[in-house]
């Protein structure tokens, strides 16, 4: 059962090395290892569902002296999302990068990013988390700069510096915790940590670092240019997965490790920033001229919703009510992951076919690229939160929890954010469904269109209809 | 003897302080590079003394590395790249 834990890290890392050494068969390697990773993620989810949280002590050393890998319902669900989104994006990328030389550079970095994502989700050790954060940051930056265009390199450099700043702050927190408690193991720390200056300062520093990485308003300034100028499959996973990995860590720290330390005031602060992100991100998305920038700002907004949950979860007593709300949060994160990845992939198709992604000039797109337009529409359904998308379920829980705890402000924010989302989505669709002749030769490539479509379908239909399983998995896997 | 070593270490630290003034004052990169060179040599001497003072002979290896790499900075500073063909 614990073999899946090893496989999730060892498979992509081995594949990265092989892709580096054997560039000719790299594409086949990626597809093959992608299937194996997905199978491992499913196995892990199954294991967690039947046996509860799993852990594996690397090298056979007890956690503390050594490093432990851990997985529970939350991480297993997210790992499966990572596997599915990465796999779909891999299929897409095999067609997106036309030249063999481009693919030779792309695949090893791509697999290293995959390694980093899996390793981060599985890590049960504070310093190991720092290393995975750096691996994630560096591979994401290298991929974001891959096009070599001036804007992309500039955005990637800023992304790198911000990321390094974030990891440094995280590392200070780790050092402080080691000074105070002489352990790096998360499970041990959860038991021994006591309210006091050490825990507060460490949590503040680490959270600050992670908020930079997850681009919470007003620390989001680096995200739109970086996500907006990367190659499409890279943008997709940056927006859908990479920022969410940092968010996952915030969630872990606040709800698990430091659960006894966090105060409602601090959680309210996160909520306020989340509200700012929802409003500002949605507004900027509405004003964006380019599709990719629109999608990037929408990511800023969608991350904001996730932070609205913090004051609600803290106000609910631990128990079923809180678990139900947590499920809503996970649902929101999952749907956004699938929908945003699909949206970026679809936008990539538009950009490649028409040479630009100006929203004003999309007229008639639906005639030439019906499937792609349909994928964008489906992603829109999920981003707005219309039923039957998973977002609908997530926002439903958000609003219920807000009403139950009497925090009406968040209800208003959610409502305004959803209206703005509807406005920016219909702005795209309004142009795309226009009946002027589409000026570009557009040949649809199945390897590009289907991943986008399947991802958005997952977000709107699968998650919405099979949503109850998410709650069960979270409960069984705790 | 350890007393003497401690005094000399401290003396070296003062001498290094003077070098710091030059590295701050310059003028120009050449002078600063020179002062950096002095700081490196003084660092080597201090590490040797510390290795005895703290009973940590591995610090001699650190001094060795610093000594071996002492010329790298000056070479990288003065070295000039050929006109690049492909840029």
């Amino acid at each position, binding site marked *: 059962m614990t073999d899946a834990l090893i496989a999730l890290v060892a498979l992509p890392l081995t594949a990265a090395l092989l892709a580096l050494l054997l560039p000719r068969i790299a594409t086949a390697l990626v597809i093959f290892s992608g299937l194996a990773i997905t199978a491992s993620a499913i196995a892990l989810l199954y294991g967690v569902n039947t046996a509860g949280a799993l852990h594996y002590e690397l090298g056979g050393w007890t956690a503390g002296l050594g490093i432990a890998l851990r997985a529970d319902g939350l991480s297993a669900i997210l790992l499966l999302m990572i596997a599915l989104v990465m796999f779909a994006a891999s299929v897409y990328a095999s067609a997106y990068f036309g030249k063999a030389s481009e693919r030779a550079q792309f695949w090893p970095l791509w697999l290293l990013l995959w390694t980093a994502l899996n390793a981060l989700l599985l890590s049960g050790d504070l310093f190991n988390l720092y290393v995975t954060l750096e691996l994630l940051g560096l591979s994401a930056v*290298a991929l974001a700069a891959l096009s070599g265009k001036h804007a992309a390199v500039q955005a990637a450099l800023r992304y790198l510096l911000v990321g390094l700043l974030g990891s440094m702050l995280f590392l200070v927190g780790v050092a402080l915790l080691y000074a105070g408690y002489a352990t790096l193991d998360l499970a041990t720390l959860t038991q021994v940590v006591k309210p006091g200056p050490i825990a507060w300062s460490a949590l503040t520093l680490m959270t600050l670092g992670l908020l930079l990485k997850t681009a919470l308003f007003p620390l989001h300034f680096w995200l739109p240019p970086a996500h907006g100028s990367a190659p499409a499959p890279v943008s997709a996973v940056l927006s859908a997965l990479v920022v969410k990995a940092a968010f996952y860590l915030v969630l872990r720290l606040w709800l698990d490790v430091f659960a006894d330390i966090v105060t409602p005031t601090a959680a309210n602060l996160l909520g306020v920033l989340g509200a700012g992100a929802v409003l500002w991100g949605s507004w900027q998305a509405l004003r964006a001229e380019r599709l990719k920038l629109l999608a990037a700002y929408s990511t800023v907004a969608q991350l904001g919703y996730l932070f609205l949950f913090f004051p609600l979860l803290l106000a609910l007593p631990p128990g079923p009510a809180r678990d139900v709300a947590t499920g809503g949060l996970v649902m929101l994160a999952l749907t956004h992951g699938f929908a945003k990845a699909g949206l970026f992939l679809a936008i990539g198709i538009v950009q490649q076919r028409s040479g630009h992604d100006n929203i004003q000039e999309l007229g008639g797109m639906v005639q030439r690229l019906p499937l792609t337009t349909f994928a964008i529409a489906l992603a829109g359904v999920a981003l707005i939160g219309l039923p039957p998308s998973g977002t609908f379920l997530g926002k439903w829980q958000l609003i219920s929890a807000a009403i139950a705890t009497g925090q009406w402000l968040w209800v208003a924010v959610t409502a305004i954010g959803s209206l703005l989302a509807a406005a920016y989505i219909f702005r795209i669709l309004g142009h795309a469904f226009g009946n002027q002749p589409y000026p570009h030769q557009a040949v649809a490539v199945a390897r590009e269109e289907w991943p986008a479509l399947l991802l958005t379908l997952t977000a709107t239909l699968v998650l919405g209809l099979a949503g109850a399983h998410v709650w069960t998995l979270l409960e069984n896997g705790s | 003897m350890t007393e003497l070593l401690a005094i000399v270490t401290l003396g070296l630290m003062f001498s290094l302080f003077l070098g710091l003034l030059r590295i701050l004052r310059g003028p120009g990169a050449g002078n600063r590079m020179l002062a950096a060179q002095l700081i490196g040599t003084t*660092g080597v001497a201090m590490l040797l003394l510390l290795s005895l003072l703290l009973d940590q002979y591995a610090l001699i290896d650190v001094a060795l*590395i610093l000594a071996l790499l002492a010329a790298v*900075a000056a070479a990288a500073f003065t070295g000039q*790249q050929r006109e690049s063909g492909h840029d």
Partner: protein
Amino acid sequence: MNATMLLIFDALLLASIIGLAWAALASADARRSVILFIAFGLLLAVAWGRLLAPDVALAEAAIGAGLTGALLLAALQWQPRKTADTTNSEQPTHTLLETGFRWLVTLLCAALAGMLAWSLTQIDAGTAKDALANAVAANIDASGVSNPVTAVLLNFRAYDTLLELAVLLTAVLGIFALGPAQAGYRIAGPVFTSLTRWLTPLLILTAGYLLWVGAHAPGGAFQAGATLAAAGVVLRLAGRDQIGLPRGNALRIALGAGVGMFLLVGLALFALGRPFLGYPPAWAGALILLIETAAMLAIAATLVSAFIGGQPTEEKTRC
């Protein structure tokens, strides 16, 4: 008496380190900043030695004083002479708002440092701060090496090191993806050339020594790899294009060697029914040396490639 003098020494050393950092970061002139930063790195190596951390001091000496310095000085070659970046203000004049913002940031940084320092005062003397150090000491006999830092890096926390080698690999692949290597250096004069003639073999020898000695004394793959890389940097600075770095496929193998060997050993043990990366105690010493050798080669190849700033072109005019 000695303790007091050491305390004064500490104070002066730290004042120099902080002063250098301050001056390096306050300057607008890139050359000045870089040279001050190199001196800063030299003093850090002394400080690590002073705090009885010779392993770290070795790495700082090799990487900080040697490689990072060379990297930064090479960067000056393409840097605009004076500072010029997104903002091209020679003497920055700030509006009231900007001044306010600068003060706010400064205050926040100070508050952060103050908070950190204050929390340090709250550390319980009673907590078992030696718990992990004792655990290392208790298990060191089973680790295959007697240098505790090497035991932590390559056995107890080997997984960290595996991922760290992956970080190095990622960085160099990212650099390769950005385009061709920097232009080589002009052939150096006779003085420096004659220096390299004996410095290079000596550096290679020292690297081997550090690798070997790492099992029981300060040293190990990183220090050795950085020293080996310094040999490559010296040759490059002397104007050689052939600096022992393999090309094409062989280079890719060298870059991946560290991660590869680590994975190979880890997975082989796993297949044999041991934990992932769990060496049998009888074999631990040998396996660690094997991994370290591969890691040293990978680190050296990576750092030299990073210094060159791109993939060496396959077939160039002079070979």
